[in-house]
């Protein structure tokens, strides 16, 4: 199986750790061989002998544009951020730095999933925060991402949900 990892991620890990070999786990996870970290890794799928063997990912949609589409398409939506499950901002519709917003979204989702489990549920579908200044929606996208939308109180919720659902597959793609 050929790896489909982000080439940039592979190179970063490679250079930082100065390893002689590395392991591609899935589309986003890279483990480096030749040091002690490898023994902790799970799900090893592919071993690659040099960075040059890594295959560049196919062209993917610009996530920023996809998010901007979502915000533009639903009246009352202000800002959308695409977040990895572990709290990195992958893209944002606006110009503000989404770093902290992304980490808080991931933490809220983490706790939300624990609350879901304690209530006997298995699948958290959405997280809604209703505050005096508006609404915040968090929708999981696949198993390991989420989109967080900041909106006015009178946002077109149906339209917003429909848009996010419609763009779900694109937001899942590795950028």
């Amino acid at each position, binding site marked *: 199986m050929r790896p489909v990892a982000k080439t940039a*991620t592979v190179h*970063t*890990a490679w250079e*930082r*750790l100065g390893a002689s070999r*590395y392991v591609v*786990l899935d589309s*986003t*996870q*890279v*483990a*480096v061989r030749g040091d*002690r*970290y490898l023994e*902790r*890794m*799970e*799900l090893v799928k592919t071993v690659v002998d040099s960075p040059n063997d890594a295959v560049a990912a196919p062209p993917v949609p610009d996530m920023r544009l996809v998010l901007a589409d979502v915000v533009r398409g639903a009246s009352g939506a202000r800002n959308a951020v695409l977040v*990895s*499950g*572990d*709290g*990195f901002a992958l893209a944002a519709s606006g110009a503000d730095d989404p*770093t*902290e917003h*992304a*980490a*808080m979204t*991931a*933490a*809220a*989702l*983490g*706790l939300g*999933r*624990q609350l879901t489990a304690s209530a006997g549920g298995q699948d958290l579908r959405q997280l809604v925060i209703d505050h005096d200044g508006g609404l915040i929606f968090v929708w999981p996208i696949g198993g*390991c991402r989420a989109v967080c939308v900041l909106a006015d109180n009178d946002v077109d919720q149906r339209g917003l949900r429909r848009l996010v659902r419609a763009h779900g597959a694109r937001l899942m793609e590795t950028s």
Partner: protein
Amino acid sequence: MTQAFKILVTGPFAAGKTSLIQSVSQTRVISTDVATTSDEAAVKSHTTVAMDFGTYVLDGDRTADGPAADPVRLLLFGTPGQERFRFMTDILKAEADVVAFVIDAEAEHTHAAAGAELRAVLRDLHVPCVVAVNRCDDTATARRLARALGALDGEAAVPCQLIDPESGREVVIEILLTLLASIETYPEPGVPGFDRAEVA
């Protein structure tokens, strides 16, 4: 009546905080582990994004001439390690009685930032700390590292191998001893007053 103490388990990314809580908790650990992405995935496969929560209960001693003493319950609150989740540490640290600071002895690149973080947390909290020095077998090394991070001379530095559950117990014992010492010094548990003025 059960006496409950709040233990803040913190420290840098991949130091062993979740392992510590999972190895010693007697209740099911509430954990917020998710798969890592980006170059953190090169270090480990999962990471805490909000908190870990576990408990450790110590039954009171039975004495020949009286009833058993009250059980002591340690509530272990683990934080994420990465800088981007610092707000969780700020939430979780409130009212903590002891800081259990976990550090990976071999991950030297994390030590400088960890020291700054430990000193900042302790300056805010005014409570004693126990430094759990993971992947370390010798007390002298653990103690030297703990001092370098900002722990005081009297504070515990525990060498441990947190992949081994028995090793986690050593840390809990030091936490209990530290609590005992602070109760003796300050009769009401949790009362601020631990003087850290001498720490730079």
